[in-house]
């Protein structure tokens, strides 16, 4: 039933996170009437800038931009929408307990570790060649097997051709290392535990994996391929929320409408076809197509309901591994803490506390048993160095991803929140002795907090764990891997789809293409 006067839309996009906004922008540019429904008071989802202490703002979940394809940003005209980068090509520095911090910039590496510097160069070159071959895998919609469609076959042939074209040497190496764990790979190539630790971070960040877990070379290659081989960490001016604002601008400019504070309660189905949504307020809005940027569990089990789905499919969705392990720590600082042995240029970049793969593995061990890491791994940025607008004059913000903080903590997060916050602060404090003196206040977002505040079941930033059984052709589950679930007219465009999370936007764009193609 459509209430009198409520317009009908071609497409409703559930959730105004970056993927939802990208999808809406492409749909609107494809000539569809589009309504984006966002539950929160502002768009952005987990790509959002928030005030976490009076006057202090921070990118509340994701804090760096490095995966969104440049072509996508150009197509949507994000700079015309006001998106500016406060910093680009941020350096990465691996912190060492003895003060001998290691910059991953080639010059620093060559000076400190001549042998590893050569090996690192070779690895980066190989990584770039593999990434170039694999990049289309990450940017295109995965083919659907068993349908005999020419599009699926052509897509697989293209992939095979690209891998073959790597040449015998690289192809063999890809097929050898593809299923390896990253620690074995790093042990083959490098000497320095500090360097290996820093590289292992990229393989396990945001996942339920340790450096010895199978599939960690895959996640590392994934990150390299998504970034097109040349990883360029950037920080938008105004935080990640500014990116979402620009995406919303692009969507609106193309004709999409966006409503905030409009949480969707249910996706409506009539005659076995998605026909609109009901808001929590009870308002019904009709549409020909519903695209959900929510995670697969929320979309299928929460918004749609298993009575519209087959039992086997429902079970696959329910069994998705979606428990997050990354917590977010935000510190409001009265002044910039002193990091001895670290120059200001390094401090503007990405700091890693992961002095060896073994350190990360030990941190991960705890997570396997429902405990938080006794010595956590951290990725730290001080965004106010490049973008002072995020804090009152002279004051600073520190933003850190802290692993591992399992979603299902055996002793419960209620009881453990403060001790984990203290542990994380002290872990950073070991490198900045006056950190506690600078501290104005601290905020910790655990996976259950992320689940609640950003409406991601499990609080996992990829919505569903990135592992081979939840990847590419079968992401999030067989039967929904081409951005379309079993109910006609219902599409997925969130991080739970191929190619996954990180502020990438590719899932949103691919879903829009799928809608435009199939509902043409």
């Amino acid at each position, binding site marked *: 039933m459509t209430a009198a006067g409520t317009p009908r839309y071609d497409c409703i996009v559930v959730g105004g996170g970056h993927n939802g906004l990208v999808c809406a922008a492409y749909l609107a540019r494809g000539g569809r009437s589009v309504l984006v429904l966002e539950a929160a008071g502002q768009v952005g989802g987990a790509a959002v800038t928030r005030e976490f202490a009076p006057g202090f703002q921070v990118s509340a979940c994701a804090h760096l931009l490095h995966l969104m394809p440049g072509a996508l940003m150009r197509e949507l005209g994000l700079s015309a929408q006001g998106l500016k980068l406060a910093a680009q090509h941020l350096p990465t520095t691996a912190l060492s307990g003895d003060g001998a911090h290691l910059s991953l910039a080639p010059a620093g590496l060559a000076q400190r570790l001549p042998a590893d510097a050569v090996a690192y160069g070779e690895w980066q070159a190989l990584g770039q060649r593999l990434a170039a071959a694999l990049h289309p895998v990450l940017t295109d919609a995965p083919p659907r097997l068993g349908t005999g469609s020419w599009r699926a076959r052509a897509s697989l042939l293209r992939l095979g051709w690209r891998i073959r074209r790597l040449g015998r040497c690289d192809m063999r190496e890809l097929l050898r290392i593809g299923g390896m764990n990253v620690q074995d790979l790093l042990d083959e190539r490098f000497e320095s535990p500090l360097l290996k630790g820093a590289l292992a971070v990229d393989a396990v960040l945001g996942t339920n994996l340790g450096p010895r877990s199978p599939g960690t070379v895959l996640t590392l290659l994934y990150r390299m391929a998504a970034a097109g081989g040349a990883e360029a960490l950037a920080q938008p001016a105004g935080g990640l929320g500014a990116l979402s604002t620009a995406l919303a601008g692009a969507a609106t400019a193309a004709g999409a409408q966006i409503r905030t504070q409009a949480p969707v309660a249910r996706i409506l189905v009539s005659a*076995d076809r998605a026909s609109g949504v009901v808001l929590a307020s009870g308002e019904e809005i009709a549409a020909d197509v519903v695209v959900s940027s929510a995670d697969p569990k929320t979309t299928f*089990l929460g918004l749609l*309901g*298993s*009575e*519209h*789905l*087959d*039992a*086997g*499919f*429902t*079970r696959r969705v*329910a069994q998705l591994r979606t428990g997050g392990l990354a917590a977010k720590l935000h510190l409001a600082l009265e002044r910039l803490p002193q990091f001895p042995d670290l120059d200001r240029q390094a401090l503007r970049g990405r700091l890693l506390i992961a002095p060896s793969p073994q350190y990360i593995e030990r941190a991960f061990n705890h997570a396997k048993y429902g405990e938080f890491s006794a010595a956590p791994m951290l990725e730290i940025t001080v965004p106010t160095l490049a973008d002072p607008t995020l804090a009152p004059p002279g004051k600073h913000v520190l933003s850190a991803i802290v692993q591992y903080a399992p979603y299902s903590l055996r002793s419960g997060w209620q009881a453990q929140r403060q001790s984990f916050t203290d542990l994380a602060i002290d872990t950073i404090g070991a490198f900045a002795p006056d950190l506690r003196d600078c501290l104005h206040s601290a905020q910790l977002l655990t996976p259950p907090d992320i689940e609640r505040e950003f409406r991601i079941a499990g609080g996992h930033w990829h919505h569903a764990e990135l592992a081979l059984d939840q990847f590419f052709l079968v992401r999030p589950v067989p*039967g929904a891997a081409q951005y379309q679930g*079993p109910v006609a007219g219902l599409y997925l465009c969130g991080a739970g789809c191929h190619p996954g999370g990180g502020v990438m936007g590719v899932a949103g764009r691919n879903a829009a293409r799928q809608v435009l193609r199939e509902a043409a």
Partner: protein
Amino acid sequence: MLTESEPHFRQPLLKTPFHERARALSQVDSFVAWSGYSTVDVFTTVEQEYFAIRNSTSVYDLTPMVKYRIVGAGALRFLNRLMTRDMRNLAPGKVAYSVWCDDSGHLIDDGTVFCLAVNEYRLCTAERQLDWLCASAIGFDVEIAEVTEEVAALALQGPTSCALLQALGFDGVERLKPFELRQFAMPPAALPVMVSRTGFTGDLGYELWMQPADAEGVWDALMEAGRTRGIRPIGSRALNIARIEAGFLLPNLDFISAGHTLRIGTERSPLELGLGWLVDFGKGHFTGRRALLEEQRRGPARLLVGLDIEGNKPAHNTLLYADRAGMKQVGSVTSATWSPTTKRNLALAMLDAPHFAMGAAVWAEIYLNRELTWQRRMARARVVERPFYAPARRRATPPADF
């Protein structure tokens, strides 16, 4: 039931609460395994037992039927999404036969659903499948528990079955219509017995459901009251003849559950099994609906049909051909029997399109064992209506007093 003095490895099969009574009456000591229980295959002779079904009253131990208790505020919604049939019409006191499928529309099992109260059901199935039921329960407010060992059951089938129950003090049992159930207190000790007018014989008959502790008491009372009505315990072999006459399917003979098949293409859909009348596309979504709709659109590639075959030699394990020369195979027999009541040579068979049309003729390749000399015979077979045998008394309410 398992006993402490007999550890499991010495007693791999369970005994039903009727086991001691059955063993005492068994003349040929022929027992078979059924769902983990030891049950009687034949008591005396198959023929004697078969004729008890059709001419007097037969008693068959149903206890090994797998039983699930399904309760909760979402029980009806759960069942309606599980089953191909519309369960919304199933009121308390009613029973429905239905099938259920996997996502691909392939049959997992068939069974009967007993509505005991609003949102309280008992599901009786041939195979254990708690795993599938639990998967189907995701998102529904429902509790499912297997109660096979908590409920003993007997099938009382045959023309004198109603009169026998009346004589035993089941007052009003004659008013029970097919697919209805009611609770009774059996005199003199007022043993609680649930009676449903259901069965697997296509004849007048009832199924009795009771607590295991009361099982022997009910058995003894039936045997005593049935003496003048020709009561006879029967085994699975006699029942198999009756169920083929009635046109009922048996899992692992006429189809294999999609949960158990290993080879691609050996699963069967309800449409292929001739159970399309159980599939209600209009009731809303159920598991397998989209796949079955697609199959219906394409039209079935094969169909399970009833065959009437010339001669009197049952067509066991028989291949079916389009031509007498046996050059083109078009299907095979799944169940076969000589039907003593209809005096016809009957079979259930899976036939490829287009050979399954009503009245179509095919050739059955039957092997005859003539005193250990095997002969091959091509017999003409015709696709005929099922059930092969459907006496009016199976539906008559109240039944005539035989």
